[in-house]
């Protein structure tokens, strides 16, 4: 489906992150384009009880940003999301006046919501034998806690929704938010994702799935190796990423800086297996985004891959790209930045959308690091180990796929 004639164009005017590669755009830009890894030894009291002792943690201390009264009733998931919402609005130089409030909302993605708060409650109840839970347990654990804290903070009375489709949650949130603006239901949307699931119980549950990467004995930072024949799996990460989406008219009227345009969004469902991706599902997702942008496949020059670093995903995504793009698949570039920032689950799509936006904005493609031994079944240009410049970068795609089958692809365009 192409744009209708009266559809609004949607642009990105603000960005913010809390991530394993830093909590500012400057740090993220420096690290992600220099191939710096944020994967480290897991810094937590329960590390000795884990088989998997590596993770991509974000360095975020709530006391640096909030009063105790505020942060003590927010799960870490909500703390980092709220922080990125404040910083994204600052980055957009956006004033939220009374006229804007009903025309602005928040769409957020998260996989596990307030995982630590739920776990703390269970520890108190089942392990410590307590008969009562903290009064804030429900409010900290519920999946929409972060989005609601953000709406309350900025007094946004427009749409407030939370999407939970596992690893594609925040790509879905961004795509759906862009449609709200495109079809006139909102002028400005905060859209992004948040995840803080590096808890004992959640990490143990992930261990049981046997998809986590082994620690690289020579370099922990090199433990995630997407598209590499010696890959061992994904590395869990945490963080939040937020975008300010705005109608082009609204952005231009207030003289906003524009990073890129959200030119298309596609979503499709795999219906293959609860964990195993399929070429049909992934290619349908990418094709839906191309159709939405009314764009031929040849226009895409860069794909920020889902690229988890599992054999099944790497090969399926490669074959899906070949199916959608045909011979052009060997001309475009693909990279997995998860090799550096790990897998942020419900926040992955948003962080990768931010990185893809920065790529389009700066004509630079971030690398797939740790790619010394390419898998023969993965034979595209994965921007191995070093970033590369692409002076005429105009269109880029960001892929997100998920356990459960929900795929989402975003197409970002440089605004001329």
């Amino acid at each position: 489906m192409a744009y209708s004639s009266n559809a609004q164009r949607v642009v990105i005017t603000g960005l913010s992150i809390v991530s394993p590669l830093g909590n500012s755009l400057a740090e993220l830009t420096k690290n992600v384009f220099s191939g710096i890894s944020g994967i480290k030894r897991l810094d937590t009291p329960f590390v000795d009880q884990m088989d998997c002792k590596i993770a991509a943690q974000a360095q975020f201390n709530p006391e640096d940003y909030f009063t105790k009264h505020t942060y003590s009733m927010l799960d870490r998931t909500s703390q980092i999301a709220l922080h990125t919402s404040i910083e994204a609005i600052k980055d957009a130089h956006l004033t939220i006046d009374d006229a804007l409030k009903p025309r602005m909302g928040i769409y957020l993605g998260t996989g596990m919501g307030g995982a630590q708060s739920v776990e703390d409650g269970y520890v108190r109840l089942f392990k410590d034998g307590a008969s009562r839970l903290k009064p804030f347990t429900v409010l900290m654990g519920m999946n929409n806690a972060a989005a609601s804290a953000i709406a309350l903070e900025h007094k946004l009375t427009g749409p407030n929704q939370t999407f939970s489709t596992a690893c594609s949650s925040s790509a879905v949130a961004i795509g759906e938010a862009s449609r709200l603006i495109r079809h006139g239901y909102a002028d400005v949307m905060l859209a992004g994702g948040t995840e803080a699931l590096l808890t004992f119980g959640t990490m143990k549950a992930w261990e049981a799935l046997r998809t986590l990467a082994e620690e690289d004995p020579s370099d922990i930072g090199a433990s995630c190796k997407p598209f590499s024949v010696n890959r061992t799996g994904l590395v869990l990460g945490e963080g939040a990423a937020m975008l300010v989406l705005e109608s082009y008219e609204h952005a231009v009227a207030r003289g906003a800086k524009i990073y890129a345009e959200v030119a298309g969004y596609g979503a499709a469902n795999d219906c293959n297996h609860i964990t195993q991706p399929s070429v049909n599902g992934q290619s349908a997702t990418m094709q839906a985004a191309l159709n939405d942008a009314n764009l031929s496949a040849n226009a895409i020059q860069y794909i920020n891959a889902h690229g988890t670093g599992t054999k099944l995903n790497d090969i399926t995504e490669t074959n899906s790209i070949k199916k959608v793009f045909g011979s052009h698949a060997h001309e475009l570039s693909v990279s997995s930045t998860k090799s550096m920032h790990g897998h942020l689950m419900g926040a992955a799509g948003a962080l990768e959308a931010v990185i893809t936006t920065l790529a389009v904005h700066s004509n630079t493609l971030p690398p797939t690091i740790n790619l010394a031994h390419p898998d023969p079944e993965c034979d595209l240009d994965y921007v191995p180990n070093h970033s590369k410049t692409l002076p005429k970068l105009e269109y880029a795609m960001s892929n997100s796929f998920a356990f459960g089958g929900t795929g989402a692809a975003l197409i970002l365009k440089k605004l001329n």
Partner: protein
Amino acid sequence: MTTNDKVNPSIEEVSNALAKMIADKMEIDIATILPESNLQELGLDSLDTFDIIFSAEDYFKIKVPNDQVNITTLHDVAILVHQLILTQKP
């Protein structure tokens, strides 16, 4: 705060312990919290008040019945907690 180790705390001691909990939670000067202080005026909403009662339960090893809701001032909480300490003493 850990737990109270005094067997029969006076109502003043209970009130002081509660004031310390409120000061810590709300990050306000304990000197500004008086027995007659209205909790709402100190910045506590109903959930904050439940949270203080929850902390008091842990600290004094008591259980506040679910139907206790008539609380306006710090003194109201102190009376409630003090009575429960006396009646629920092991």
